[in-house]
């Protein structure tokens, strides 16, 4: 019993990093604020925790505020914290990515970032 408690404490102390408990942007492709040389095929955003696809969205807008993504937001099959949306061939310019997600504990978070296509 003492061993079990000791191992449990070891796991707690040495083990995992802190949970976020609300889904926030962890990383994105194209990266936040980055400049890419060619038009990306899709925007991929990885969140800090798993999200509910039914209530999660990514929208990509061009400089004039027109939505340019293919409106096919989907969750990655193997990674339920990775959300993707397809893009057509983009012209050079600055694009704004707006995301809103619901984590599996029902908390709603949202945010936005921009990237630039240099071509």
């Amino acid at each position, binding site marked *: 019993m003492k061993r079990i*408690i000791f191992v*449990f*404490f070891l*796991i*707690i*102390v040495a*083990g*995992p*990093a*802190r*949970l*976020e*408990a*609300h*889904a926030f942007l962890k990383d994105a492709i194209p990266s936040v604020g980055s400049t890419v040389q060619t038009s990306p095929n899709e925007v991929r955003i990885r969140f*800090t*925790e*798993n999200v*509910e*696809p*039914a*209530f999660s969205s990514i929208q990509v807008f061009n400089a004039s505020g027109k939505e340019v993504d293919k409106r096919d937001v989907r969750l990655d099959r193997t990674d339920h*914290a990775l959300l993707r949306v397809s893009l057509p061939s983009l012209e050079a310019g600055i694009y704004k990515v707006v995301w809103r997600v*619901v*984590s*599996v*504990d*029902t*908390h*709603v978070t949202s945010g936005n970032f921009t990237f630039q296509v240099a071509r």
Partner: protein
Amino acid sequence: MLTALLIIARTVQIAASILFAGIFTFDLVMLAPDGRLGSGDFQEIERRLLRLAVWSLVAALLSALFWFWLEVASISQLSLRNAFSTAGWKTVLFETQFGRVWQLRLGLIAVAFALVAAGRAQVKTRRTLIPVLWLLSVVFLVSLAWISHAAAARVQPLGLLGDVLHLCAAGGWIGGLIPLAIFLARARATASLGETVVPTLRRFSTLSLCCVSILIISGISNSCLLVGSFYALFTTAYGRLLLFKLVLFGILVGFGTRNRLAIKTKLLKVEVRSDLLPQLRRTVICEACLGAAVVAIVACLGITQP
């Protein structure tokens, strides 16, 4: 407004779930071993416990529906009035983890209602039904872990395991306080229960001690995962709420220790004294009220960003 309503719904739902599990844990662990279950006094206590179970189920059902309504409005970004006028509730119920957990919980409530009704109607089948109801109540309680902060964690199964243990321990200890108060009230009213009071209290005391140990260990685990640092305990809203919960928990443990050391030792040394039972019952009711306050803080923690 929505936040305040969510806190109320969560508080009632969690409290009802803890009480429901506590009732059948008390019945199974505290009452059953005495082997006097055929006696009129025990039947009367069980009858009262089953009536309490019905009320806890009613509270669980109403707060579950209310919580679901609030979540539909929150997730779908709709007004409360419009939350059920669209297909939003179907999407929440069938396409989210929260909805799937709610399907399970509503199903368990329906089954529990039927079993409790059968137990109240037929004394003979009660003995068979109590273990089934206990198992069902534990599943009902721990299913809350799948909609908690821990469920969203990518650190699994530690997050869920900590939450499940925490809920089970709360059910065994906090949930057993009202049933204990009912038992003490009956023990005071009738002399025939006198010789069973001490063993029952001893069993409850031992179970409480185990539950407090589990609450402390799982609480440390959950806090490490959710708060992250000692500094965050004082600088974030979540940390300060958690500190407040810890203070109340400390007072609760103090009450429990006082019961264990002061009153129960007296009960063990001398004949069951009738003046000690009301005193003990009052302390137990105070503990239950403090437990309810802790549950309200847990409800606040559930909607606060760690």
